[in-house]
């Protein structure tokens, strides 16, 4: 009998409190995305020109990194559902490491832009680019902190096959961070 696939549960995975937070965050990002899109409609040339200066390879690489990291978290949740704390910890570690890779790539990108004299006040496009990516950057850090907290608890055997709400809570937040980037990348880096 496969109890895992069905997750026999009507309610959201993890603690409901994190979902309130997730919905609030999605709302902020959603409004931010639309603000970008409609500002662009008033400044098409400026946006298209400035967008050319972005490092699309770094953006795409980071998308792959986050997707993979998300996938690792899925594996961590699957592991703890079978009560395998050790495996859960390993997958969480891998997911956090991927988060670290994301940060490093992003820092190189930021460094590149700052050394080119680009700041929040350069123009509307870069205002949005830096605001959105920095805001997201901070979310990656927060997500890593949450995953690390989950990891430490898992390592000390704080979760079991029956009780692992904490893992699902952290996982849900991390997937949200991934989800937002999935929209951010094509919006800011690709389409014009």
């Amino acid at each position: 009998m496969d109890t895992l696939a069905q997750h026999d549960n009507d309610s959201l995975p993890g603690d409901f409190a994190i979902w309130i937070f997730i919905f609030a965050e999605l709302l902020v990002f959603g409004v931010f995305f639309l603000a970008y899109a409609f500002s662009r409609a008033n400044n098409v040339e400026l946006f298209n020109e400035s967008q050319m200066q972005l490092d699309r390879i770094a953006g795409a690489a980071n998308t792959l990194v986050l997707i993979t990291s998300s996938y690792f978290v899925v594996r961590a949740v699957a592991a703890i559902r079978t009560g395998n704390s050790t495996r859960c910890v390993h997958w969480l570690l891998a997911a956090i490491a991927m988060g670290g890779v994301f940060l490093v790539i992003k820092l190189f990108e930021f460094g590149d832009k700052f050394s080119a004299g680009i700041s929040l006040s350069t123009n509307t496009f870069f205002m949005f680019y830096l605001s959105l990516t920095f805001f997201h950057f901070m979310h990656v850090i927060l997500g890593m902190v949450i995953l690390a907290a989950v990891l430490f608890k898992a390592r000390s055997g704080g979760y079991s096959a029956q009780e692992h709400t904490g893992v699902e809570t952290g996982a849900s937040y991390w997937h949200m961070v991934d989800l937002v980037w999935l929209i951010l990348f094509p919006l800011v880096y690709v389409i014009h």
Partner: protein
Amino acid sequence: MQYSSQAVAKPYFIAAIGLFVGQILFGLILGAQYVIGDFLFPEIPFNVARMVHTNLLIVWLLFGFMGAAYYLVPEEAERELYSPKLAIALFWIFLVAGALTIVGYLAVPYATLAAVTGNDLLPTMGREFLEQPTITKIGIVVVALAFLFNIGMTIISGRKTVVNIVLLTGLTGLAVLFLFAFYNPVNLVLDKMFWWWVVHLWVEGVWELIMAAILAFVLIRLTGVDREVIEKWLYVIIAMALITGIIGTGHHYYWIGTPEYWQWWGSIFSALEPIPFFMMTVFAFNVVNRRRKEHPNKAATLWALGCAVMAFLGAGVWGFLHTLAPVNFYTHGSQITAAHGHMAFYGAYVLVVITMISYAWPHLQHNAPAANGRAQLLEMWSFWLMTISMVFITLFLTGAGILQVYLQRVSDTPLPFMVVQDKIALFYWMRLYAGLAFFIGLCLYVYSFFAKGKESLASS
């Protein structure tokens, strides 16, 4: 009243209501000066009356918050107050300092007051809401720290409930952020930027924690709903308040010389600021509907629900009306701002203090859970009279604001400020009448404390 030291709240509440009456009297003077320009001129010029009006508001709300803390902290911590004597001493210090400051405003020209109190040494005066002489500001800090010490010691050594912890965080934030009142650089932009760290981060930040904690306490007592449920939502609501409110500071950084990206950050986050207020309203009604007991103090329940609704309307809806940068470009510093300010302060902070007083007073004065039926009836009448008057004050100011914005800033032939003021005088007259009605409501409220009734609702 479970702990005898809770009684120290009583003088605080009396002072709060007394100063509230003074605030409204000066509000009436201001309202009259808007339409009769030379009213009481030059004895009480507008700027002096306004300073008294706003400073009294802040001081009486602080009295209210402190009284509320002294009342609820021992009950939550399940122990006597650390030092009731300190609380009484602070009361007199704060009252005398406040009274002297107000007398100073009224008795001598402001420049003289500045000279006498040594504003040259550390200039902090002459900025909106922070007009107090530097020495008064230092006094406020000392009182606030001693107060926090007293409350903190009580909380730390007692039962640590969420209500207490949130209240303590809010009060600490209040004291810490006030320190920015001492930073007054010559650079006007920096001055304004950090001035908002006091003003915005107070009223749209840490004060909301205080408000939510007080409301949560009263709702727990009035409804008997499980503490766990209320505390859980208390956390979620204040989390939302801070998440939206901190970056929401940006809605003050549109036109004061700060970079233009604040127009986006400020608009996006402050547009979400109504959410916590909306949650609070829904939550308050939910809790009251699911009440597990019939508390005899019906008036307190009315104030609590009214507080949630009016805070949502005043701070949430009226705030949202002019918070988006493209709208604010036209409405900034107009009567729209005044409309929002009046209803938001009334809804969120005046009503929360009165809610607390309404809940605590029967315990403090009569050692009973509720006042007599007639007194409660009068209280409820005063609620409706004041609240409806405030709604009309807000509506009239909004009308004045819309006309002002159009005539002065939007139309093809913009008119000078004073010409526009003459054209919208009708709205100011109506606002003055609504203000008079508010004052009648307030008199009724004060009277309700003295109303005698034969049968008490508590015994019926």
